[in-house]
């Protein structure tokens, strides 16, 4: 069986095609294409502009993915789309496209929860059977474990998502949004040495990032590290450095932009690893699966690996092809639901900004 997955809940538009062979052999990715709307440094992506981007690209990506997968329209069994959660306008533009294809090709629609898509793709790629899932992205921060046909949320953010915290700090520092802000923060953080004291807010299995963001934004302003000028100055300094390692004297204790990125990463990832560890201890699981865009961060993966090792377990992570929003994860989760007989009638093929992970009845698992 073949499913097309269409995802556009944030600034990534993804179209993917999954094949589930009839003989029960492992599912295959036939195409995985993504186009990202990148906003200029210092700005976030606005729903209106992002939706316009998705509308402009969606037909192109569907055509390209069919061509790459070498499948014809007749071979497709169902069209899976992101029902939510996400930004309203981008979600809508993709759901309209999915509906159109469904009518045009006369194929059933399958509405998919974005978070469940991430979990199912992660499970497929890594082979983790029943892990504790840390889902971290620009819009979501959740610690999830499966129990009686639901993906239950054990801990989550009390305010903004971790990716949102990183993105917004990248905006403060005027760091490029290309390929994505978190990646550039990670690169800059590698040069950081000094750990700045930041609020560390863990409540049980929940975390909070808004106070931390306000604090680090304040520090950046206090040391004159925010805005476009500081970014340019920093860039020039980098350029003038020659091959040899230059040791920056830290006599006045003034942090650098790199120090702030370093401290931000160390603090927020320590918080995430801590709540994941607490969930693991609580459910008695030894596997951790990291999904979502922030999951591609190598420092987070490294810290999680150390934690898991000390608990006698292991960490499963994927690279940016699978953990950043994509179409195949929607196709994968949609296909699993479709195989149990689930379809979304045209009348109900809506999208919603609020769609909690634990609202989905996971019919395809019975463990």
């Amino acid at each position, binding site marked *: 069986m073949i499913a097309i997955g269409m995802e556009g809940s944030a600034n990534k538009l993804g179209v993917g095609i999954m094949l589930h062979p009839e003989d029960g052999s492992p599912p295959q990715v036939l195409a995985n294409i993504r186009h990202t709307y990148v906003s200029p440094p210092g700005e976030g992506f606005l729903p209106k502009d992002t939706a316009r981007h998705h509308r402009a690209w969606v037909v192109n990506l569907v055509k390209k993915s069919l061509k790459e997968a070498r499948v014809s329209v007749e071979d497709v069994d169902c069209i899976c789309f992101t029902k939510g959660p*996400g930004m309203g306008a981008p979600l809508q533009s993709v759901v309209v496209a999915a509906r159109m294809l469904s009518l045009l090709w006369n194929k059933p629609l399958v509405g998919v929860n974005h978070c469940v898509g991430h979990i199912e793709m992660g499970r497929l790629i890594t082979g983790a059977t029943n892990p504790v899932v840390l889902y971290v992205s620009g819009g979501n921060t959740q610690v999830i474990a499966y*129990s009686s046909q639901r993906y239950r949320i054990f801990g989550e953010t009390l305010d903004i998502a971790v990716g949102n915290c990183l993105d917004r700090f990248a905006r403060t520092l005027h760091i490029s949004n290309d390929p994505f802000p978190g990646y550039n923060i990670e690169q800059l953080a590698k040069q950081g040495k000094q750990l700045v004291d930041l609020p560390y807010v863990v*409540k*049980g299995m929940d975390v909070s990032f808004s106070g931390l963001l306000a604090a680090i934004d304040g520090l950046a302003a206090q040391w004159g590290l925010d805005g476009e000028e500081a970014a340019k100055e920093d860039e020039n300094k980098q350029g003038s450095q020659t091959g040899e390692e230059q040791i920056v004297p830290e006599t006045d204790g003034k942090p650098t932009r790199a120090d702030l990125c370093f401290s931000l990463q160390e603090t927020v990832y*320590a918080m995430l690893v*801590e709540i994941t560890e607490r969930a693991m201890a609580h459910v008695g699981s030894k596997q951790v699966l990291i999904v979502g865009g922030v999951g591609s961060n190598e420092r987070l993966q*490294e*810290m999680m690996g150390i934690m898991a090792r000390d608990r006698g377990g292991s960490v499963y992570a994927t690279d940016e092809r699978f953990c950043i929003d994509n179409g195949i994860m929607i196709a994968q989760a949609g296909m699993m639901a479709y195989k149990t007989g689930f379809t979304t009638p045209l009348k109900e093929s809506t999208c919603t900004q*609020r769609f909690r992970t634990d609202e989905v009845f996971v019919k395809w698992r019975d463990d």
Partner: protein
Amino acid sequence: MADEYKPPALPSPFTNTTPAPTLLVQGAEAHLYKTVSLDPSIPAALKVRPSKPYRHPILDRRLTRQRIIQEARCLVKLVREGVSVPAVLAMDWEGQGGESAWGGAWLMMEWIEGPVVRVVLEQWEAWMKKNAASLDQSQIQKEEDRLRGLMKRIGHTLGGLHKAGVVHGDLTTSNLMLRSPAQETTDSPTGVSMEGEVVLIDFGLAGQSTQDEDRAVDLYVLERAIGSTHPRSEPFFEEVLNGYRASHKGTGSTLKKLEDVRLRGRKRSMIG
């Protein structure tokens, strides 16, 4: 693949106590050992917070030190106020007891004999799932009443905690114990005793607060923990609130706040 797990070395002086401390659980943050205090006949619980190698050393030291001191302060205060928690016997927050660079901290507490509520509920739920079909209505009613009683006692204990000006910060069923009574009297066919005083443990994330917000979050965290770990017991959470309401005056505003927290919790599906 994962290496065979070895718990980190014990801090001095526990490296040469007889009998040697036995590891009971590896919690998220700490290792809990059973050891003895002063005399081999006096059992004690030893909570060791080893340094977390995944964290930056400065951050790690700051958190470990801050939390173990906070925990001890809360326990001492609660014992004084008559809330049932383990008493503090000894502690080291600087990790000086170890060989040179040992960066952890430890806290020795009174030994509580009995099961954690998580295990009690798990056993009860498993038994009910297996045998519910063969029970008549009055037996089911009796079992559910027993659970209601336990939930109510939990609520009462939480009321005492909050009245003393402390919030727990990590209320799960793993952090609630039942102190075994001198004589076990279980006439339930399930064989699962729900007797004994409810004892609160693990104050690693506790803090001093009398704000309705913090208290309500405490209750909400427990509600969600029960919902996610013990789906069958979830309908009885109302009894926790009943017990809580009856525990002391002024719980009304906290319970009202809880409704806000619940709503906010439901709306927490993020955009983007």
